[in-house]
């Protein structure tokens, strides 16, 4: 995801603004019980970096767990320092008076296991050797990341979340949570996501991984005491960025315009604005992200398939007890609307109360990170009704009874 998009920060969302959570402090929590992983190995100890916003109420029924996407982190909203140039990655949705209203809800977000933003990942020290894991880090799946975060939520004393949510990979985690822990959330908001990444998505991830592994500095993942594979990671990010934007948006934003020049140079210097933009994004990314984490997390995304171990997606959703809001964006071709509809179809076949919304806009996959009135309204309206239901049992959208139960005859 492209958190580097230039989005104007509204005055009330700037540090000290009325709708900003303000200064926030990253926290960490470590558990020593080995985390059993899908690959058959286990991981211990597991540290997770996380942030929280708002207050957990005495009934402990107002907690929302947000999952970040591929290149995200636990820093969802607010600022770490007063002079931070920009707030957390979902600040447009998280804060007092915003859709994830921190004056009503207790928001938690943790960096995924395998990541490089404070949680245990390939750059962490392997307790066996005292050196960074590198490729000795076990392969982690979306399910493993979710299991680790369940430990964190248990640790925070929350039995049942009001909602789990996320976009893109974060949406996959929300789906996984709702299936894996049916009693541990009242609702799930799955945004710009899929129950399984399509071949095109896997293809782009693989190009990114190959770019990293072809960089001589990658050194089979063992580069932590030397030069890092900047060129490879930068290319991976450039490829990723192409998939986050729409053709329409690229045309409007860059067209065929040249960067800082009037005419072609007939050489291989950066000439087009779109080249310059992608290189800038690539160069910025290598300052903040670990190449091995990029390999591990993209692989986890590729492996994700909710139908694993089931005959169909319908069967996978059989035990689900949450109600769902599924949102897609019309110009998103990485996680296209048709894949959101696949989720909705399988949920509805199970009678699960499901709301589906397709938001028309031109921003491609990145749309889920950008301010959108429709997304804001959908999130705030949905959360409010879920909370009414949890609190008062009012207006609850229950599961449709199976046709066999003929309690009602017309």
């Amino acid at each position: 995801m492209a958190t580097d998009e230039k989005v104007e920060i509204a005055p009330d969302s700037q540090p000290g603004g009325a709708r900003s959570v303000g200064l926030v402090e990253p926290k960490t929590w470590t558990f020593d019980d080995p985390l059993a992983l899908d690959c058959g190995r286990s991981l211990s100890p597991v540290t997770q970096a996380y942030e929280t916003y708002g207050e957990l109420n005495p009934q402990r029924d107002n907690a929302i767990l947000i999952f970040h996407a591929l290149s995200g982190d636990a820093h969802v909203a607010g600022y770490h320092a007063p002079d931070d140039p920009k707030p957390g990655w979902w600040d447009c949705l998280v804060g007092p008076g915003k859709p994830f209203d921190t004056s009503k809800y207790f928001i938690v977000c943790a960096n995924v296991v395998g990541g490089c933003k404070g949680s245990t990942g390939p750059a962490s020290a392997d307790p066996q050797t005292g050196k960074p894991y590198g490729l000795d880090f076990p392969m982690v799946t979306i399910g493993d990341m979710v299991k680790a975060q369940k430990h964190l939520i248990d640790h925070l004393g929350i039995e049942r979340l009001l909602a789990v949510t996320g976009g893109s990979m974060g949406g996959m985690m929300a789906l996984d949570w709702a299936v894996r822990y049916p009693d541990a959330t009242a609702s799930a908001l799955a945004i710009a996501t899929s129950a399984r990444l399509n071949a095109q998505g896997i293809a782009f991830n693989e190009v990114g991984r190959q770019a990293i592994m072809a960089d001589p500095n990658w050194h089979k993942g063992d580069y932590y005491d030397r030069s890092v594979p900047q060129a490879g990671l930068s290319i991976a990010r450039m490829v990723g960025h192409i998939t986050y934007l729409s053709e329409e948006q690229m045309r409007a934003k860059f067209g065929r315009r040249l960067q800082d020049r009037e005419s072609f140079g007939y050489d291989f210097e950066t000439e087009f604005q779109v080249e310059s933009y992608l290189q800038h994004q690539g160069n910025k990314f290598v300052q903040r992200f670990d190449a091995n984490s990029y390999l591990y997390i993209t692989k986890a995304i590729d492996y994700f398939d909710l139908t694993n171990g089931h005959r169909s997606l319908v069967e996978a959703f059989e035990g689900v007890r949450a109600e769902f809001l599924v949102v897609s964006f019309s110009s998103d071709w990485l996680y296209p609307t048709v894949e959101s509809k696949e989720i909705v179809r399988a949920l509805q076949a199970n009678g699960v109360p499901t709301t589906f919304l397709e938001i028309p806009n031109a921003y491609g996959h990145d749309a889920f990170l950008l301010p959108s009135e429709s997304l804001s309204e959908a999130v705030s309206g949905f959360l409010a009704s879920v909370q009414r239901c949890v609190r008062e049992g009012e207006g609850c959208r229950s599961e449709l009874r199976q046709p066999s139960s003929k309690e009602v005859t017309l």
Partner: protein
Amino acid sequence: MSVPAKRRLDYELIESLIPARARVLDLGCGDGRLLAELAGHKSCECRGIEIDEQAVLACIRRGVAVYHGDMLEGMDFYRDGAFDAVILSQTLQQTSDPVRVIEEMLRVGETAIISFPNFGRWRVRLQLLLEGRMPRTKLLPYAWHDTPNVHLCTVADFRELCERQGLERVREIFLVPPSRQIGALGANWRAGLAIFQVRRR
């Protein structure tokens, strides 16, 4: 495309056809008011399908579970007999394939409740006869070139369709605008709006 403002009486009459705790699907559910009332008054289990984005957002605010999209596509997602009643309020005439819509309604639902403006009403007939112009009334407010109503029908037409499709007409309710219920006598001449409840024979 906007649906003519739905008035209270036809909502109330539709509501009266639906027993408590029924599973209800409303096609073209608009802002979800009818469904929210059914959920609130009768503890119904409600779902909606609506194509307009702003209306979908209104449904979400009301706490109505809604599918944003085409009604045939949306119904396709549900299992046979998933609902006790499927409602199509003043929208049949706007669908491109009314017969398929009705068939699909009776696949996912036990009964279908369908309301539509009666094109056989005397006022409509007179406009065409005397003025030679495409009729425009409160229930049919559009000019010929911008109307979403592509499949208008009369009460007699709809009854004939039911016969042809092997549908039992469980209830027929007729209204005269703005909000008066009338009997079945001469309904094809007199009714502005018809509400049919039908099911498979």
